[in-house]
């Protein structure tokens, strides 16, 4: 029987879709504190203000992340959620786990917490919602000792790195995203578990420019697979697509009759840089103009493949805040090799260079992308000792003045004015 009247929440059960309200009522049969989740949320709907407070000193010994303190500001009304801390558990690479592992994790959370989960948080962690402070250490002991799993990142830490399925299942992956993610996760354990930075920091690994983990939109350093040479074309397979013998997009849209495949309309005309054309019955690509959008490869996967010289592009500065608008990351390193044989040393060297600069220059609660915006991209690339490339230019300059640094001007800014005036009248 319901502990609280929740008429407003009950409306959320009336639609045809699954409802978290129904789920919580079901969970309340064994975890009575779930009634208080519904009760406090109903009160928030009525009062039009949250009744959650978050933040605090809760955590497990030695860790500065992985637990987010949550408290009710009306504990006398809802004692079951007086403490309702969130636990972030690091997800396995590519989010591969066995059903046995999931059952064990759910059993563990039923034992130490509310049993309510969020699979997954936007960073990728497995989010376990709702436990009391005194349950945190026992939970952590069981998680690490019985399940060999660990907490993820929170606060001003390196957040749990995430990666796409990469070479484990995807033919387009240009590097081993799982190896890169695992290697860097292990290398930066201290940064994941203890605060290190002015604010949160994320890196994510996508194997190709399809960017299935949305690294470009969500991570401070996005590592996105790419290739240096030409898209590999199987002209015989192109002909099969044109003849309608191979389904486009791997058959992904075959549930409806879209008509005969039209390579001009569906591929060539949609190329964002117009770098494709048909010539003598063959598909041609001006690879120097290709921006790696992946559209043609996605449409004709049996005919087109990424090039053979593979690596990654590194972009910096994305963030997805709720209030002031999302920002994509900026291409900084167009191509680096990605090899586990040298422990991804080019990437590691760059990451640490960014960190050293940001830790010094970044303001409190300022993401690295915001620091870049504040100081300007020219300053950032100068500090990173990089040559500017056209992809870094957002738009042509709108003012006619070119500012030179003194060291860029022959003879510097000191000059003999008399000598100058002898040749150039005032």
């Amino acid at each position, binding site marked *: 029987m319901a502990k609280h009247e929740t008429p407003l929440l009950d409306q959320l059960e009336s639609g045809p879709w699954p409802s978290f309200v129904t789920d919580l009522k079901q969970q309340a049969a064994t975890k009575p504190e779930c009634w208080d989740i519904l009760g406090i949320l109903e009160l928030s709907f009525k009062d039009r203000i949250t009744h*959650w*407070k*978050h*933040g*605090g*000193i*809760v*955590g497990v010994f*030695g860790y*500065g*992340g992985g*637990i*987010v*303190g949550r*408290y009710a500001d009306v504990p006398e009304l809802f004692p079951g959620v007086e403490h309702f801390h*969130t636990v972030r558990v690091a997800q396995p690479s590519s989010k591969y786990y066995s059903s046995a592992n999931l059952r064990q994790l759910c059993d563990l959370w039923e034992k130490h917490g509310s049993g309510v989960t969020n699979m997954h948080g936007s960073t990728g962690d497995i989010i376990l919602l709702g436990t009391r402070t005194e349950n945190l250490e026992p939970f952590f002991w069981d998680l690490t000792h019985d399940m060999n799993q660990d907490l993820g990142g*929170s*606060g*001003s*830490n390196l957040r749990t790195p995430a990666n796409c399925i990469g070479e484990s299942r995807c033919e387009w992956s240009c590097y081993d995203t799982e190896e890169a993610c695992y290697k860097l996760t292990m290398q930066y354990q*201290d940064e994941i578990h*203890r*605060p*290190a*930075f*002015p*604010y*949160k920091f994320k890196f994510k690994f996508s194997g190709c420019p399809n960017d299935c983990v949305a690294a470009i939109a969500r991570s401070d350093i996005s590592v996105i697979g790419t290739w240096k040479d030409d898209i590999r074309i199987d002209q015989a397979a192109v002909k099969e697509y044109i003849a309608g013998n191979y389904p486009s997009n791997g058959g992904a849209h075959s549930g409806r009759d879209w008509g005969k495949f039209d390579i001009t309309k569906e591929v060539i005309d949609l190329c964002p840089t117009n770098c494709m054309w048909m010539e003598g019955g063959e598909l041609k690509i001006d690879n120097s103009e290709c921006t790696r959008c992946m559209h043609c490869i996605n449409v004709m996967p049996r005919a087109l493949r990424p090039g053979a010289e593979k690596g990654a592009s590194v972009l910096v500065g994305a963030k997805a805040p*709720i*209030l002031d608008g999302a920002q994509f990351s900026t291409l900084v390193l167009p191509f680096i090799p990605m090899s586990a044989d040298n422990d991804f040393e080019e990437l590691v060297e760059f990451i640490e260079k960014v*960190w*050293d600069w940001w*830790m*010094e220059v970044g*303001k*409190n*609660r300022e993401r690295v992308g915001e620091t870049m915006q504040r100081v300007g991209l020219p300053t950032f690339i100068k500090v990173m000792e990089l040559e500017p490339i056209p992809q870094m230019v957002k738009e042509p300059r709108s003012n006619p003045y070119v500012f030179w640094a003194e060291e860029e001007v022959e003879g510097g800014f000191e000059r003999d004015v008399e000598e100058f005036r002898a040749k150039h009248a005032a």
Partner: protein
Amino acid sequence: MALSKDELKAAIIEKATKSPKPQLYIKDFYACDPDAKPREIKNIANELVREQKLMFWSSGSTTMYGVPSRIKNDDGEGGV
């Protein structure tokens, strides 16, 4: 001249104890030794947490430091 490790620890504790604010960002400790690199200051501050002379306070999105006697347990700030 850079401070020794013990001097830097003492300077951090003094800053955390005497600051008007009970919770401080890691950057607030940089001034304890302008010659030290940010990463060194961070490592020392985290070592002081392990020694239980400092504590973490986390809003979920940001982590701050303070001496245990000055930190409140359950007040929130900022967004996660």
